[in-house]
């Protein structure tokens, strides 16, 4: 049955429809894979029984001709999505024992489409991190290894558990969330596809908030086609989220025409900073060549405020987080550490419940919003955001998509870059500008580096034009012919 876990979403969907195997068999295979791969620590909560129940129900719907778009397909869910009746932790000690009495809109949409949930995946605490090392439940191992070096590597973050699970074939796909690169960077590190849709495409309702103006859910899959299928099920207008776009959901899979002739692909010169690793520059050049060969036209563009994106992000995101995380106070759910007074209880609970990175961001966020500093930091950052979004707007007057590397490096060993927060922050240098502008971005595996680790390329699209983005990504994926498998996944 191992082969069942190797299928793509499209293949499994078609196989179920043909009756090649049953939803129970498919889920059973994934449950076993999840159990066998516990060493990766990709899951915080496994839900094998629930998955089997859902699979049985799917089987019935398939049998009676009522199959949804993702009927019977086992997926992993980032443990940032609230799932009714299933522990939801955000990888934080402070949410100890929290069982939501509601289901997030995105996971509810997936359920409605018939998807099966195999478990809740590990992540950086409250999605704050780029290595999955800030999880209260411990780091996640990337299933990939350097050639001839068995040291465990990070899967990236914050959706590290989801990326590792998809790469290791523990789910046909997974949900991620992306605030500054949390879908795209781990996708690149794990050799999979990760799509951050336009802000407003997927509802944020029921997703534990990190930075409200940036957070966006998206699919993590092994192919671009799978991302298109999964996004179609996740997306849609939600009246419960005031920032959800009241737009119809296109048939994203239909957009994969394979034809990108005449499209203009922007190549931003600011994404080639001094000291950019040669292997990254090289894979980017290959990507440009692939798209050119397919009939697209590369155009050099300028996004002049790119270098200010990271500092802007590290004001805006912590500021919003400091406020969003104020609700974790030991009163209504989660951890409580008793104290003599209410304030004492707050201080002790939050000191014990939050990890070091979360505390740093909450404190920075508190500081930049405080009296006397608001204008110099927060207001300034929001002005920079206007400028950064303006750069993209101008660029998209002359190009249809933008191509950049996803991350400045391949996956690094577990425990590295932990001493200095800023070194870690630099992982997101290529993904953060897109987030600040609210644009859709997708990371596609583009090849291996000299050490045998996957590298990703990022495509950025116009707002709500995921169709063009997916069309180009699909063409690039085909050209890249990325067939390599991580360690432990048999060829």
């Amino acid at each position, binding site marked *: 049955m191992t082969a069942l876990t190797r299928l793509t979403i499209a293949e499994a969907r078609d196989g179920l429809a043909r009756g090649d195997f049953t939803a129970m068999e498919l889920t059973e295979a994934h449950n076993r894979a999840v159990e066998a791969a516990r060493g990766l620590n990709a899951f915080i909560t496994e839900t094998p029984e629930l998955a089997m129940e859902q699979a049985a129900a799917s089987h019935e719907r398939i049998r009676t001709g009522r199959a949804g778009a993702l009927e019977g397909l086992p997926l992993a869910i980032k443990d940032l999505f609230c799932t009714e009746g299933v522990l939801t932790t955000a990888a934080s000690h402070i949410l100890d024992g929290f069982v939501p009495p509601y289901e997030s809109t995105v996971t509810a949409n997936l359920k409605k489409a018939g998807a099966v949930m195999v478990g809740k995946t590990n992540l950086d605490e409250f999605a704050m991190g780029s290595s999955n090392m800030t999880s209260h439940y411990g780091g996640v191992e990337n299933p990939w290894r350097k050639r001839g070096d068995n040291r465990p590597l990070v899967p990236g973050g914050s959706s590290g558990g989801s990326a590792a699970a998809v790469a290791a074939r523990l789910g046909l796909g997974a949900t991620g969330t992306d605030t500054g690169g949390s879908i795209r960077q781990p996708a690149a590190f794990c050799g999979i596809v990760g799509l951050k849709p336009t802000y407003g495409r997927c509802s944020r309702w029921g997703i534990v908030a990190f930075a409200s103006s940036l957070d966006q859910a998206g699919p993590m899959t092994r192919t671009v086609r799978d991302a298109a299928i999964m996004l179609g099920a996740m997306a849609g207008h939600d009246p419960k989220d005031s920032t959800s776009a009241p737009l119809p959901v296109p048939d994203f899979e239909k957009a994969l025409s394979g034809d990108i002739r005449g499209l203009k692909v922007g190549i931003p010169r600011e994404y080639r900073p001094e000291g950019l690793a040669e292997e990254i520059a090289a894979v980017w050049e290959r990507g440009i060549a692939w798209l050119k060969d397919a009939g697209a036209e590369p155009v050099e563009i300028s996004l002049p405020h790119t270098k200010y994106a990271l500092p802007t992000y590290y004001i805006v995101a912590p500021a919003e987080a400091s406020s969003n995380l104020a609700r974790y106070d030991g009163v209504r759910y*989660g951890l409580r550490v008793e104290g003599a007074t209410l304030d004492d209880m707050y*201080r002790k609970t*939050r000191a014990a419940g939050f990890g070091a990175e979360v505390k740093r961001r909450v404190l920075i966020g508190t*500081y930049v919003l405080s009296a006397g500093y608001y204008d110099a930091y927060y207001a300034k950052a929001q002005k920079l955001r206007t400028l950064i979004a303006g750069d993209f707007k101008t660029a998209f007057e002359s190009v249809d998509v933008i191509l950049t590397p996803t991350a400045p490096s391949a996956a690094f060993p577990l425990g590295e870059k932990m001493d200095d927060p800023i070194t870690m922050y630099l992982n997101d240098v290529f993904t953060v500008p897109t987030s600040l502008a*609210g644009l859709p971005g997708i990371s596609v595996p583009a090849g291996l580096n000299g050490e045998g680790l996957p590298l990703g390329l990022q495509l950025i699209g116009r707002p709500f034009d995921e169709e063009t983005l997916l069309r180009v990504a699909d063409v690039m994926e085909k050209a890249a012919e990325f067939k390599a498998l991580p360690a432990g996944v048999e060829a």
Partner: protein
Amino acid sequence: MSLDKATVRTIANLARIEVRDEELDHLAGELSNILHFVEQLSEVNTDGVEPMTSVAALELPRRADVVSDGNCRERILANAPEADDGFFLVPKVVE
């Protein structure tokens, strides 16, 4: 801007996070580094630039005035660390 220990203590208090005295030095250093990093923004002239209020160029949606939620006390209190008689309980507050 470098943060001193007193400032770190003040913001930790505003954020209701207990910080031990021996942590203050290290934390002040880390936070100061982050602030130095983000202060690059000061070199950009932003005169006349409107701060972004939302990337979503949408109108704020409004819902009808209909009672559609609530009346679910069990679910609201189910996760409470301490509850009694339909209330959440906290250490006594003196006003």
